[in-house]
């Protein structure tokens, strides 16, 4: 038997078992996740929001009502069969505009987290592992940022420029990295002393290798959970900014802007504020429930 053939046999056999092991891990994860019914609910909610946001033009009853649209004839209509959530001051269907608005809110969250998480994680890893002056500098800066309320900070940054959605995103991102930095810094500091890190050192691993191959995977779960829980918060901050007129500008309104515009007409034309608020509530609740469930699944299993 040639070594090549036997090697091939071994590898195919190995590949089958590899697939079995992967299936087993995924299966276990799913089992843990679905044991907690609340997190399932959260997962469904988030999936629903994301699905609606992505396919907005195809699932909304009046896709043309998004963006710049006026139909003063049909303005201020109460919720009815043709307009489930009623119409707003310019005649647009509130339901449709909410879906499109949440699209913008979610996009803002994705961009903010997409920028702030890598920056925060990276700085957290470096400061945690290097210690000493590097850590002191980075963590003190983090402390300063963390001691100021997110919304106020974002406000200050936004107000310095002409209000627009990109400025809002950058503003929130520029303060959001600090949360992840502190989280990862803490984890890194405790993992640093673990025996498997010592083992890597004995093997001759460089600090960079230890940081990215040993420490980073251990940060992954807490960071993922935090991202999920953060999503809700970021949406809230973003909506807050928009509510104050500093974020998404009309006609590309997001949920916060919608609430802001609708507030003037309370309490008689309540649907213009209540439904966007409920939408924000729904999205944030979904992310929070999902985050809780993920925390369960991703927890490191102790030896059973």
């Amino acid at each position, binding site marked *: 038997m040639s070594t090549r053939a036997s*090697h091939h046999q*071994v590898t195919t*056999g*190995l590949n089958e*078992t*590899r697939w079995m*092991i*992967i299936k087993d*891990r995924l299966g276990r994860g799913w089992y843990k996740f679905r044991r907690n019914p609340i997190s399932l609910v959260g997962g469904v909610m988030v999936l629903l929001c994301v699905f609606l946001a992505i396919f907005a033009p195809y699932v909304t009853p009046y896709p043309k009502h998004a963006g710049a649209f006026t139909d003063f004839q049909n303005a201020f209509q109460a919720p009815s069969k043709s307009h489930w959530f009623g119409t707003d001051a310019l005649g647009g269907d509130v339901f449709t505009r909410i879906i499109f608005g949440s699209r913008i809110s979610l996009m803002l969250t994705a961009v903010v987290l997409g920028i702030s998480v890598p920056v925060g994680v990276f700085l957290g890893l470096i400061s945690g592992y290097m210690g000493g002056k590097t850590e002191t500098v980075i963590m003190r800066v983090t402390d300063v940022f963390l001691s100021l309320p997110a919304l106020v900070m974002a406000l200050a940054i936004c107000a310095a420029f002409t209000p627009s959605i990109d400025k809002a995103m950058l503003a929130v991102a520029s303060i959001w990295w600090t949360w992840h930095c502190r989280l990862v810094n803490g984890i890194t500091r405790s993992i640093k002393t*673990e*025996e*498997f890190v*010592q*083992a*890597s*050192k*004995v*093997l*001759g*691993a*460089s600090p960079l*290798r230890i940081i990215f*191959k*040993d420490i980073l*995977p*251990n940060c*992954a779960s807490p960071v993922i959970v935090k991202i999920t829980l953060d999503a809700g918060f970021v949406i809230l901050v973003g909506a807050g900014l928009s509510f104050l007129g500093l974020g998404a500008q009309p006609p590309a309104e997001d949920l916060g802007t919608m609430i802001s515009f609708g507030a003037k007409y309370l309490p008689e034309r309540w649907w213009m504020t209540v439904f966007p608020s409920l939408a924000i509530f729904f999205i944030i609740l979904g992310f929070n429930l999902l985050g809780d469930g993920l925390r369960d699944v991703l927890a*490191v*299993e*102790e*030896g059973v």
Partner: protein
Amino acid sequence: MSEPVLKVENLVKYFPVRSGLLHKIVAHVKAVDKVSFDVQKGEIFGLIGESGSGKSTVAKTIVQIYNPTSGMIYFKGQNLSKLTKQTIGRFRREVQMVFQDPKSSLNPRRSVMSILEDPLIIHGIGKSRVERKRIIHTLLGQVEMPSHYMYKYPSALSGGERQRIAIARALAVNPSFLVLDEPTSALDVSVQAKLINLFLRLKKELALSYLFITHNLSLVRTIAARAGVMYLGKIYELGTMEMLFGHPVHPYTKTLIAATPVVSKEEERVKPREMSKEGEIPSPVNPPSGCAFHPRCSIAESRCSQELPSPVKVGPGHLVWCHRAEELAVRAEELVVLE
């Protein structure tokens, strides 16, 4: 005797204890306080001790996890304090370590393959993924594990299996010397037996030398050739198994052997009488003066609390650090004659 493969001379390792706002150093943990011994090629040398004895610190200082506070370590004649960034790589290919706790010595977030690939990638062993996989396949075979285990994660493995992976990881760089820090203490006795037999087989097949650290005297008796007994940072008795267990001299050594639970009458017969008073093990931050064992020693004299005992040779390759070594040794020999 030929040149030892490992030579430790007056090794000292203190850890600073900091306190206060300014993190001022207020005391030192005298983990290792002038320890000397050597390991011959192909030998298993045991380091026996309880908690606070410093044996793990000795191990970790030898593999350069810690830097010695003072003292010399020579590996194959080379002074380890003179290692540079270039030469340390070679050292790491020669000397590897297996840790005590299988739960924490493997990264729970990495697959077995990732863990075993690490040393191969770091030292450039195996030029491609495929080749490295083949090497891992061989390594797993050496520690008697099926190949598909490379896709598993540590949490899916039992304690004994995890230790085998830890051993495979240490063997990946093809070392000549292994430091084994209580490698089986956390395992069941039947699993331990298998792993010990694996260690002995590997030693023969790969011509290894071991520094074996443990608190289990029966275990050291079974596999080591020579051993040193440590207490609070110092070695108090050193010798071959026949010497140490057949004619133990130091009161602490006798106390340790006497306290070891045994499973047969034959073993009961070889136990000496313990020579200690009831008491706790003091902390290495503030060890007793002179001979550190004197507060618990049933035959301590005044000089025992005042000066450190110097080594006394009581037999071939048998050293004891005790002020009353000669008289204890004579008594032991008398007993031998009587039998």
